[in-house]
Structure formats: structure tokens, C-alpha cells
């Protein structure tokens, strides 16, 4: 009986104390016709040694290709200390800090995380994380619509240059609450979202919020000050969707335009979370002080104990589902605590200067890779705007097949853009983080050139 400590003596003594003859008797209130027999479709138990062998075989099968995909999840260096500490039993196997006095470790980590995210975004407050960047944006939208008392509109402007999966996630989550998402096109030359397109989208009337992503899905930098001021002039709130590594270099949402964005959210995966096929990651969500009571999710606060000593506790619980039930700001119950722990340690190890080095190295590597690839006939940058650490490239042949061919060589060559943006023609989005070496980038360029040479000949 793996994980079950009961000895035959224990069982006998416990049943005697309860006053029943068998464990089975404890289920006697369940209608007997509902009781099941053997679960035939479930295999018999494996020992740890056996499951280890199986998982090792499967993990090896997945290989370790050289990754040039970004598109919302990034292959960064994670300091060894991050997970050696985050995986300590006291963090790993604790739950939501319902008993604050017995959870000061977790609570202080959450408070420090919140502090770091406000420093990065330039906003006043942060929650203690949400499921991921996309669902954080959905919550940000719900929050903005609740918070915008000036327009009372349920329309939200969403750039088409926002990550397609984010747009899909947002739709799935917010549309059932009667929110209307209005799409805003981008400029096919620069890849930016221009004011003219905003004007066009806003024709339908007032709107509660504008989403600005910086950099946008194409890696291109938006003119955030102009966009922010434009939205504020129309009484809309501004939601910034930002990359935390980019924030080491880029103007923080809190300083966009003359008043700053109202809400900022994004994906914290870049801060110490392995790619892990898509999760677990963590979304972050920050806002101006005035909206704090609309902020969903767990929030840790600093307070005093009976002796006047500082300590930490979950606060503003009156917003939450376990108190307000149907009237809560959200149904959210868990956060991504373990990932927040990793992100907090990660940020402590990097500091602002380390984060800036990472950002600079990613930027340089992506520029270098784009340069190497753009030498190949038919390959060229798709947009003219400045980028952070991703670059869209035009291709002479359809991207999906090409990427499959590269993958067979152990190279993940990028993200195929045409399925989501057929109007752009064959194109990929590439990313070279600080982990990529000159050799790896040259190897990619060589293989791409060779594959394209074959294809174009045919």
C-alpha cells in the first residue's frame, strides 16, 4: 500500500474504536447499486523504480531540440538555486496560507513578489499571481469593465497584434459575461498598432478599455505613450500586456503617456519557470491603487501581530469567492504559488542589472539571428518597427512544412504565422534568447539555407 501507513493492527484498533466490523461498512450510506468493482481500464500499480524507467524513456523520446520559438514562452537560463529552494518541502507541500501565523514563509514570498512586480510595472499594487498571462488578461478586462465608472461600456479594444492564443483565451472567458471584444488592426509595414486603426475601431461608440501589448506579438515595439494618451482622452482605461524581461529595458506601464496605464498584466514564465510544454506558468496583474478593490486573486499584505511585530497575511479577502460567493471579483481560488516562489527567487538573484543583461543579450541574439537568416534569398524582416527579442520574417515557402523539416534536424525554427495571419503570407516569428550561441544560430542559418535551396529548386 504505497503512501498508506496503516498496519493490520492499526486497522483493527481503529475499526473497533469506530464500532464497525470492516472498512467497507464505512461506505454503507452509499446506495449499493452505485458501488463499483474493479477499474479495468486502469493499469496495475507500478513501483517508483518502474514508473521512473517509463518516464525516463518518454522524456528522452521528447529530445532536447535547440529552441528558436518564443511566441509567449521563452527559453531562459534558470539559476540552479531557484528550484532547489522552491522545491523545498516547506514551499512545495504547503497550501494557501489560510493560517497566516503558520505560513509566514509563503506569505512573505507573495508580498515580495508583489513588491517586485510593482517595481517592474511602475504600478502601485500587484496580486499574488493568476494562472497564466492569457487568463490574467481576461481577468484584467473583467476588472477594467467593472472599474471604469466613467463609460459604463462593455466594449474593449483588442489589437490584432496581440498573441492569438491570448485573444482566444480572453474570448472564452469574458464573452459569457457580456463583454464585446473589438479587434484593432495593425499596420502591415511597421507591424505596429496605429492610432488611425484605433479611431476606426472606436467608431462604434464608447469603450471601457484599450489593450496595449508591449512588445506586441510580432516582437514590435508599440508607441505606448501615444496609444495610452489616446485611450485616456476617451475615458477608457489602459491595460498593458507586458513581458517582464523586456521591462528591464522598456518604459514601465505605470509611466506610459501622461497618466500611465491603469492595469498591467502578463506572463511571468520568463522569470524562472521552465518551458515544460506550456505550464505551470504564472500570470501577473498590477494596477493603480484606486482599483485595488477590483483586483481579483490572492493578495498578501503586511500588518502587525499582537506584539506589534510585523507579519504577513492574506488581505482584502472580502473581494473573494469564499466570502462574497456569487458577488466576488472572480471565482479564483488558487494562485500559482509555487511558480511565484520561483519567480521571486529568480528576480532576487538577477536584480535589475541582471535582468537588464538578460534583456540585452536576448535582444542582441535575436538581432543577430535575424541578420544571419535575412542573408538567405527570400528571407527578410516582415516589419520595419523596432523589436525587443522576437522578429517576424517573411519566407519564400510556407512555414509549417519548413519548420517540420527543421524540427527533424533538432531545431525548433520559430512559430508559423500564416495559420493565424494568412494575410501576411508565409512567415515565421523567431526568438533567440540569451541561451542561444553563435554556433547554434549559424547552424540554424546553414540548415535553413540548405532546406530552402532544395525547396525552391523543386
Amino acid at each position, binding site marked *: 500500500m504505497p503512501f*498508506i501507513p496503516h498496519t493490520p493492527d492499526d486497522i483493527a484498533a481503529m475499526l473497533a474504536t469506530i*464500532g464497525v466490523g470492516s*472498512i467497507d461498512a464505512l*461506505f454503507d450510506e452509499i446506495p449499493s447499486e452505485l*458501488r463499483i468493482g474493479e477499474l*479495468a*481500464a486502469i493499469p496495475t500499480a507500478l513501483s*517508483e523504480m518502474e*514508473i521512473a524507467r517509463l518516464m525516463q524513456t*518518454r*522524456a528522452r*523520446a*521528447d529530445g532536447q531540440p535547440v529552441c528558436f520559438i518564443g511566441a509567449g*514562452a521563452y*527559453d531562459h*537560463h534558470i539559476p540552479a538555486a531557484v528550484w532547489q*529552494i522552491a522545491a523545498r*518541502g*516547506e*514551499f512545495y507541500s504547503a497550501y494557501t496560507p489560510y*493560517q497566516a501565523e*503558520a*505560513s*509566514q514563509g*509563503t506569505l512573505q*514570498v507573495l508580498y515580495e513578489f508583489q*513588491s517586485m512586480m510593482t*517595481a*517592474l510595472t511602475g504600478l502601485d499594487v500587484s496580486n499574488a499571481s493568476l*494562472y497564466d498571462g492569457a487568463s490574467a488578461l481576461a481577468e484584467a478586462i473583467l476588472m477594467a469593465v467593472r472599474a471604469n465608472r466613467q463609460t459604463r461600456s462593455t466594449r474593449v479594444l483588442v489589437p490584432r497584434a496581440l498573441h492569438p492564443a*491570448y485573444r482566444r483565451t480572453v474570448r472564452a472567458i469574458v464573452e459569457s459575461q457580456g463583454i464585446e471584444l473589438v479587434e484593432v488592426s495593425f499596420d502591415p509595414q511597421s507591424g505596429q498598432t496605429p492610432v488611425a486603426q484605433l479611431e476606426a475601431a472606436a467608431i462604434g461608440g464608447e469603450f471601457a478599455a484599450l489593450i496595449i501589448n508591449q512588445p506586441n506579438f510580432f516582437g514590435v*515595439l508599440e508607441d505606448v*505613450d501615444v496609444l495610452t494618451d489616446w485611450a485616456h482622452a476617451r475615458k477608457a482605461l489602459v491595460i498593458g500586456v507586458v513581458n517582464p524581461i523586456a*521591462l528591464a529595458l522598456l*518604459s514601465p506601464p505605470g509611466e506610459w503617456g501622461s497618466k500611465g496605464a491603469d492595469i498591467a498584466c502578463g*506572463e511571468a514564465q520568463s522569470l524562472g519557470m521552465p*518551458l515544460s*510544454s*506550456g*505550464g505551470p506558468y504564472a500570470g501577473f496583474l498590477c494596477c493603480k491603487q484606486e482599483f485595488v478593490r477590483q483586483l481579483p486573486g*490572492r*493578495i498578501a499584505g503586511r*500588518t502587525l*501581530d*499582537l506584539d506589534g511585530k510585523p507579519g504577513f497575511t492574506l*488581505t*482584502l479577502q472580502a473581494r473573494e469567492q*469564499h466570502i*462574497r460567493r456569487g458577488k466576488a471579483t472572480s*471565482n479564483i481560488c488558487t*494562485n500559482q*504559488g509555487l*511558480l511565484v516562489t520561483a519567480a521571486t527567487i529568480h528576480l532576487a*538573484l538577477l*536584480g*535589475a542589472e*541582471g535582468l537588464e543583461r538578460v534583456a540585452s*543579450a536576448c535582444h542582441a541574439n535575436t538581432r543577430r539571428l535575424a541578420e544571419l537568416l535575412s542573408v538567405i534569398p527570400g528571407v527578410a524582416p516582415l516589419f520595419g518597427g*523596432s523589436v525587443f527579442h522576437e522578429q517576424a520574417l517573411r519566407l519564400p515557402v510556407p512555414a509549417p512544412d519548413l519548420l517540420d523539416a527543421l*524540427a527533424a534536424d533538432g531545431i525548433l525554427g520559430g512559430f508559423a504565422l500564416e495559420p493565424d495571419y494568412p494575410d501576411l503570407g508565409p512567415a515565421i516569428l523567431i526568438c533567440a534568447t540569451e541561451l542561444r550561441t553563435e554556433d547554434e544560430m549559424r547552424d540554424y542559418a546553414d540548415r535553413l539555407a540548405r532546406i530552402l535551396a532544395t525547396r525552391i529548386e523543386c
Partner: protein
Amino acid sequence: MLIHDHSRPGRRATAQAPLNPPAVTDIPAGLRRRARPMLPEVSEMQAVRHYTRLSQKNFSIDTHLYPLGSCTMKYNPRACHSLASLPGFLARHPLAPDTQGQGFLTCLFELQEMLKEVTGMHAVSLAPSAGAQGEFAGVAMIRAYHRARGDLARTEMLVPDAAHGTNPASAVMCGFTVREIPTGPDGDVDLDALTAAVGPQTAGIMLTNPSTVGVFDRNIQAIARTVHEAGGLLYYDGANLNAILGKVRPGDMGFDVIHMNLHKTFSTPHGGGGPGAGPVGVSARLEPYLPVPLVARDGDEYHWLTERDRPDSIGRLTAFGGNMGILLRAYVYARMLGREGMGRVAEFSTLNANYLMARLRAAGFEAAYPERRASHEFIVTLKREARELGVNAMDFAKRLLDYGYHAPTTYFPLLVPECLLIEPTETETKEDLDSFVEALIAIRHEAREEPETVKGAPHTLPVRRLDDVRAARQLDLAWKPLTAGENAHG
């Protein structure tokens, strides 16, 4: 001390960032940050020491009995962590082609199949990132189902008063109004009230069974009949699935849609508040609406099904489809339990709960539903102690911390006054349960002899009782430097 208090300008963990990256020169100045963010500047050892010491301030499964009702704080096997952390899994980009993830997809597919079998449902999606997101997905599927049938009048979701707060919140998020159904004095749903409440406006009912009062609703078949006959669907909140794993299946009880909390029943780490994972299972008629992505099998090949393959899906709940590493942990756990181990989870978690209830009753504590079998959890009400001794459930809970036990859930469910919801789980030993009983007896004795000791508890933890009112009134949610200029060169 905060990590910020260890910070000094110019201090760094140099090894952790690229040593000499080229300067960035081609980003317009107007888009650049003016001052560095005020992140802590510490050495590598300072960070390691700070967070190691912080961790020691936590209670956790690995250090303490943690009988937090409705949270199923059972042992998290360490192999689940190490095997989900194999490099081939950790390094995989979510947008890598399926051909470069057959090992990973095989695990997920088999997990889907195992969850189907153990819940009796027709199909499973692993996408929801937590129980609450599973609830949202489940209710959204109920909505999609009625809409697809043109049955637009069904705007009301029935929720028992004992339900988790997430239930009504999720229903509202999906655009439903909530009608509360009372719990009867025996802990089962009040059938008459339910019958009175159902009607053409009924979209469905959200039920936890065993319920949050720790008993299995004996009328579940009648409830299912009543709701189904009214045209509604049944939603199963899987928070308490641990109590019946391998014994009874929600699908067999008549549920149309369920979510499971893998961080409870399948022992993935609670991680200080998450990540969870909240897969949803459905009956055949709801299958088209399952959230994406799903893993499909095609001969020996596994691949993701996405929005393109599933046009009726309620959609995508996160950008990349879920807490994959958590799903791998649940998979490893399920394979180690195996067919024969699933039922043992229910058996021994139930044995432990009933034993603990019997011992506490024998010691004079009042069970909320003494005439009922406990499921894997049960409620003790301290209303008599509160009245007679002026020491309430929260005081008992805080004092338990001094005895080295995490407190049970307090003041939930809302319908039992001064309650402790106690869930020992199957992985605790008889001798630890016995010691827990001794601690509660000792605290009650203290409550009589020296009530201030209990009311002032805890006394032995890193902090004494914290002022929650102050926390909410004088909000301090983030460290700020004393003056904005001080750290500008940070």
C-alpha cells in the same frame, strides 16, 4: 526582514546573468525605461539564505499534520516531482511540434483515459488550470449545451448553501443567476426545497458529493432524477473526490459534468496556494463543448486537438493549454497507485476520518452530524466551548499551531457555527491522529484553566496572532523605498 532589506546598491549575484551582453542601441529613447526598477540587489548566498530561512517559517505536509478540511493535504510523493522534472519534459516548448512530444503526450492521453475510468465520465479535458477554472469550464459547457439546443430560458443555477464559494462565483461568471438550496438537518440536500426550485429556468445544479459537511448525500439518485426531469444538468464539484475514489463514480450517480482537483485527489503539490489542475469530465452529450486542447490518439501517434478540430468547444482557458507539469505529476501518482490503489485512497481516508470523529466524540467534542458516517472529512462544532468558555473555533485553531498541528478549516461551511472541518487524509498514521486528539483535549483543558493562553495563541510561531483588520484597512501590499530618489542608481 524583507529581501529588500538585504539589498545594497551595486551588489549582485554576478554568475546569474550574461557576463558581457552588447549594449542595446536601437530601441528609441522614448520607449526606454528611465530608471532601473527597484529590485533587490543581493548576493547569491543572501538570496539562498533568505529564502531557505523563509521556507522554514511554513507549516507544510512535509513537516506537519495538515488536516485542512476540503483541501486533501496528503503526502505528495517526491517521485512525482523528480519525474515531471526530467529535462526532456522541462525543456519542451509548448509550440514544439507534436512529433517532438510523443512521450509527454502519451502520458497526458493515458491520464485522460484513467480519469475517465475513475470518474465514469465519457470524455475528459485536462485544460483547466485549477478547480475554479474547471468549474468555469463545466458551467460554460452547460450554458453551451442549452444554447445549442436553443433552450435559452435556462438562466438559473442551483447551488446548495453548503457549497464552496467558487460554485456560485463560477456560475455568475458564466452569466447565470444563482439560487441557493438549503441543506437538511441530516446533512443531505433538502429534497423538497429542490423539487420546489427546479423548473424551466433551471440550467443545472452544482453539487459536491460527499458534500462540504462531510457526508455522502444518500438521495443523490433522486436529486439527479429531479434535475434531469426538469431539463437541467448536474455538475459535480470534485473537491471531495478523494472520499470515493475507486468506490463510486460521479458518472454513475448521474452527473453530466465534473471537475477534479488534481492537487487534492491526485496529490500534486499545493505549492503555497497553487498551481492546481482542474480537469473536466463530461457525459457524451457535452463532449463537443470540452475546452481545448485535448490529446487524441491516432494509431501509435498522439496529437493535440485545438480550436480548429473542435469548433463547438467553449474554447481555450490559458494560452498554452494548462498546467502540464502538474498533469505529469498526477500521471505518475496515478500509475503508482494503480487500479488497486485507487480504492484504497477512499478506504483509508474514510477510515482515518471516522476514527478521528469517533475519538473526538468519545472525548466529548460535538460532531455536527453525529448520526452520519464521516466521508473523508467531518465537522466538529465548538459552539458549546465558545458559549461556555468564551474560546472560539479560531482560538482552538491558533492554539493547535502551538501544538505542532496545522489547523483544520475554520468557519466553513458557513451553516455550522464555530466549526472545524477536519480532513486527515489517508496518509496520516493512527498515532498522529491520536496525538492530534490529545492536543485538542489539552487545549480544551487550557480553555477552562487558562483561557488567555488559548485566546492569545499562537505563542511559539514566528509571529503571534496577526491583525487582519489592520491589514485590510491600512493596506501595505508592496515594499516601497523610503524616498523615490534613494535607490535610483539601483
